[in-house]
């Protein structure tokens, strides 16, 4: 069964400097039980799409269904199915962590769910902060509470909008273990993230967004297969000649060439030798999602 169905979703914002099309005919489906990644650079439209899904915003055209229910006309039913972790680090300064969770449960008409709230606190490493005021928590702790608040009603579909932006390594580990467990137990997960490594490790399928359009949509393994399979990586103190630089990805001293086979790698190394350049720390690695991402984003220019 389809968990989330995006059907030609478009969104145009009218501002002082004219209309801006944030989403341009987004269509794809996410199946029940999937762990799905939504990737894209800043301004690609990820958060706009999530906001329309969550009913925080209306689409200009098209529609979204969750478990076959329309997010606009059947909003109340849809919100019981969805658990959304917002991107902004928001909190209510009047209450403790446990109060925030109890109120959030209450809004869904749920009481006496202390066992589940305790489990959430435990799994997200918040047990010793349960009675602390929200104001006293660090940014990372507040982020954990956001995740817990989204899960109070055990939503079948979990939506995380960049939940690990600016968060320490420990939380990322805790969070992913827990979300992966929920996914194994049958919850559908839709994740937007900047950390490509995370989506590669967790998401079975990925959609890439750019300028409000879907520019890639495939199984993570197929996306990786279709891209150049290897990357030649080394460090260089000098400048690359322009004809080589055009094919490379340069980050400071680090130079990376996408390559399909050994012959191509040999070709690059020979070109370096001819230019009289000395490559240091040479390595050949498997292409990862970041390479695919940059390929796709480059091609979609």
């Amino acid at each position, binding site marked *: 069964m389809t968990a989330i169905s995006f059907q030609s979703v478009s969104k145009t914002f009218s501002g002082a400097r004219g209309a801006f099309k944030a989403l341009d005919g987004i269509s794809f489906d996410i199946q029940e039980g999937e762990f799905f990644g939504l990737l894209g650079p800043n301004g690609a439209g990820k958060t706009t799409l999530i906001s329309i899904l*969550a*009913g925080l915003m209306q689409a200009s055209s098209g529609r979204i269904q969750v478990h076959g229910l329309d997010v606009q006309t059947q909003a109340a039913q849809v919100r*019981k199915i*969805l658990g959304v972790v917002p991107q902004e680090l928001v909190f209510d300064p009047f209450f403790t962590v446990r109060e925030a969770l109890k*109120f*959030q449960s*209450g*809004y*869904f008409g749920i009481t006496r769910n202390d066992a589940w709230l305790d489990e959430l606190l435990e799994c997200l490493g918040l047990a010793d902060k349960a009675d602390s005021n929200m104001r006293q928590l660090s940014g990372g702790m507040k982020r954990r509470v956001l995740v817990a608040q989204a899960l109070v009603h055990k939503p079948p579909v979990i939506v995380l909008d960049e939940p690990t932006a600016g968060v320490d390594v420990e939380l990322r580990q805790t969070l992913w273990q827990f979300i992966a467990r929920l996914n194994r137990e049958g919850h559908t997960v839709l994740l937007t993230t900047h950390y490509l490594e995370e989506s590669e490790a967790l998401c079975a399928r990925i959609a890439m967004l750019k300028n409000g359009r879907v520019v890639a949509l495939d199984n993570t393994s197929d996306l990786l297969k279709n891209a150049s399979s290897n990357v030649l990586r080394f460090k260089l103190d000098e400048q690359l000649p322009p004809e080589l630089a055009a094919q490379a990805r340069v980050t400071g001293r680090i130079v990376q060439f996408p390559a399909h086979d050994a012959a191509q790698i040999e070709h690059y190394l020979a070109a370096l030798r001819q230019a009289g350049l000395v490559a240091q720390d040479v390595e050949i690695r498997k292409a990862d999602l970041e390479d695919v991402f940059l390929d796709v984003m480059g091609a979609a220019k």
Partner: protein
Amino acid sequence: MTGWQALFYKEVLRFWKVSAQTIAAPVLTALLYMLIFGHLLEGRITVYDSVGYTAFLVPGLVMMSLLQNAFANSSSSMVQSKMMGNLVFILLTPLGHWSWFAAYVLAAVVRGMAVGLGVLLVTVWFAPLTVMWPVWILVFALLGAAMLGTLGLIAGLWADKFDQMSTFQNFLITPMTFLSGVFYSIHSLPPFWQQVSHLNPFFYMIDGFRYGFFGVSDVSPWLSLGLVGGAYVLVAALALHLLRIGYKIRG
């Protein structure tokens, strides 16, 4: 507990946790008014033949504090949640516009009634209290608090920033409550200003409320009830409409 009750309870707990600010402070302000105006003007102004000035002042101060605090509760809660972004926690729930309306307005009524009761308790020592019609007192207290709580909700939805909110409060709510006959009977005003006062909806709330204490008023309590009740239906319909379309809270 159903959803709207959880939201109502949250809204009550929100002001209760800072009750020094939200209840004790306005009670103290009313006490100062009582000390100064009551002391200065007792014996110099006669409002109704049978009622001393200080006794006249008590219900006015109670109602003024009740109205202002009911307004402050829903408006500040809404603006603060919008600005801090935590309104999203409610926006993501299945709560509909009737639930939002009931929770915000009833919490404002509770705050208004708590402050009103506090003011009554500290000012009642200054003058003998008469209670002629307790039902009128209760009806106008509840209706007035609901009216201002609803206006506060509308203002909170409309305002994007705290300074817009304080404009609303300082230039509309405060003048209208002060000029509604809290400190004087409008019969002591020149005819022109009497006419103007009749256009102020707050006048009817305070006049009707006062009738409950003394059994005398500037206009009939039934007229006041009709006007305030009618106005409330319109204000409530507007608030419900804004909540239903997600005015300024859903893009």
